[in-house]
């Protein structure tokens, strides 16, 4: 708190407000409003956790830990298990990040390091535009364009060459886990790209000049810039991962909505966000509703854990790269 002490002193010196100056000085109001904003975030998170736990208590009591490992989801018979949904959420998001990260890095580096301004400007604008497209539009495009394209031209050769792997078995209908992961990748690429671009632009020009002056090639210079921006890039990837986990509409339209754990990426799967969106409006019965709200709680916790893990992982990686640089 040394900063605030400092501002208090400044206030005291130049005050014209009389005896109430401590309480109602503009700096105090300013500080108070900022604290209130920050506190509000914490309050909202706490309130959400409390309400969700409370509303899902019936299901928590009924199924206990079994809810997390149960594989059957049958509202008619009143059996609820979350494992296939957790699996689907994590796998589809991981596929998305694995595809989107190198792609976004490539686009961002091109925009910042390679492209002339006349191209970089409009392209940068396009990237931001892509980030603003509603997800239902991506979903419709996925049904009508992406899925048929993948089914006809990408999946068959993939199956003939890599069909011996368990990931590429079964009949590719174009609708399933892989397509879900790909549409997610397409959706999070603009976000990661936009953030990485800003991060790269923030790396001082002097670093590039120094590297070039030492005789580094453009590729070597870029590596140095990337290493210096690694923590920012990590942040961008986590932002993308967060969106991938929570994304609902587009995935729901393309993933096949089948609660099953199958090694094959061609098979349909289901995500937590999708089942909530699909079934909440027509959910009748207290236990059913309660189970769906417990899914919300799990999504909340999964997001928290995955983001934390990603942060830890990337932190350790970026430390290493910084050492190299």
């Amino acid at each position, binding site marked *: 708190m040394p900063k605030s002490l400092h501002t208090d002193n400044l206030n005291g010196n130049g005050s014209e407000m009389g005896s109430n100056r401590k309480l109602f000085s*503009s700096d105090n109001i300013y500080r108070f409003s900022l604290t209130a904003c920050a506190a509000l975030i914490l309050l909202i998170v706490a309130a959400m956790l409390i309400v969700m736990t409370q509303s899902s208590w019936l299901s928590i009591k009924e199924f206990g830990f079994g809810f997390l490992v149960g594989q*059957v*989801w*049958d*509202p*008619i*018979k009143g059996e609820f298990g979350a494992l296939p949904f957790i699996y689907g959420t994590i796998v589809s998001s991981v596929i998305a990040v694995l595809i989107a990260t190198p792609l976004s890095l490539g686009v961002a580096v091109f925009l910042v390091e390679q492209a002339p301004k006349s191209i970089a400007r409009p392209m940068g604008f396009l990237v931001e535009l892509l980030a603003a497209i509603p997800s239902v539009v991506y979903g*419709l495009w996925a*049904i*009508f364009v992406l*899925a*048929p394209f993948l*089914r006809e031209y990408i999946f068959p050769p993939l199956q003939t060459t890599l069909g011996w792997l368990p990931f590429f078995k079964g*009949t590719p*209908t*174009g*609708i*399933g886990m892989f397509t879900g992961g790909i549409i997610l990748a397409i959706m999070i690429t603009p976000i990661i790209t936009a953030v990485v671009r800003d991060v790269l632009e923030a790396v001082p020009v002097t670093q590039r000049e120094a590297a070039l002056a030492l005789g580094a090639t453009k590729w070597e210079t870029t590596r140095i810039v990337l290493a210096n921006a690694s923590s920012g890039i990590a942040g961008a990837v986590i932002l993308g991962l967060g969106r991938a986990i929570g994304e609902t509409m587009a995935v*729901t*339209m393309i993933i*096949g*909505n*089948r*609660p099953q754990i199958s090694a094959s990426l061609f098979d*349909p799967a*289901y995500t937590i966000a*999708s089942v909530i*969106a*699909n*079934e*909440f*409006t*027509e*959910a*009748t019965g207290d236990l059913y509703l309660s189970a769906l709200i417990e899914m919300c709680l799990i999504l909340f916790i999964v997001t928290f854990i995955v983001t934390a893990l990603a942060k830890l992982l990337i932190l350790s990686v970026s430390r290493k790269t910084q050492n190299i640089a």
Partner: protein
Amino acid sequence: MFGKNLITILIIGTLISASGCFSGRRGKGDAIKIQGAGSSFVNPLMQKWVSEYGKLNSNVRIDYQSIGSGGGVKQVKERTIQFGATDVAMSDADLKSAPSEIIHIPVILGAVVLTYNLAEVSQTLRFSPATIADIFLGKITRWDDERIKADNPDVALPSAPLTVVHRSDGSGTSAVFTNYLSKVSPEWKEKVGEGTSPSFPVGLGGKGNEGVTGQIKQTPNTIGYVELAYAVKNKMPVGEIKNKAGKYILPNFATVTNAAAESINETPDDLRVSLTDAAGADAYPISSYVYVLIYKDQPDEILGKTLVDFLSWGINDGQRFAESLYYAPLPQEMVKRTSTKIALVSHNGKSLRTQ
């Protein structure tokens, strides 16, 4: 700086207090506002009714929100709306837990149809109940299966894998379809059962009628079920289904209305009836009523009167909008029985029917 903030606060404050004025109680000459919600299937018709009825009664404002049948039932029970709409009649247990007696008003008819994507086949395919059950149970996995061939002896069926597409979101469509399958297949009844969110043994899930339609249109060799309106609007092939009388019936306005007319004698006093697997030579076997739910004892006289008038108008004059919006109209006998039902709606023991 401070002056500006103060002005902003004042403006916001004024806005808040002004909006407070609007939410005040109803005075003389003000519009009568009625709030309804529920079934998304009936939404296009409801919006049409609301606008047409509004033209005749300029002082009435009806608002219908398409939030799903389950939501409609829930909000009626919580008394947050004046009427709900549902594709599936409320269960006895559901009715018992309501704060006061709820009556079912059938307003229109819908049908669930089988639609498929088989580029090689131009003829209309026929399906017997046992075949449909086996397809959706995952026991038939290829189009040239003997059971499909037996239903369609004259059709050259392709030797292709068969992919089932079903609804992934909870819906009245699934409820009607699984209600039918539970009636015609004991195995289905035992393994899956009926409900708005059945756990299908096989297939891909599409969100909403449009999701199922989209997946069937885009994926070759698929079969699925949608509301009649979606199949017609999207010009998709629709299968003929063998009914109880042993006849293969194509779904259309006439055969769906027939199913209701043929079931009129089995329809109980509270009008809650399942039309699936209906008897009668020309009855389409997967038809169903859409119900509006209202309290028999209306808490507000003016609102109650308006509601009764709106519903009476809907089941009489309103029926002519049905076919252009791809719904089947109620049979005449049902209009009569529904009218007598509406006459029972009362406020403090006094009937609200004006005619």
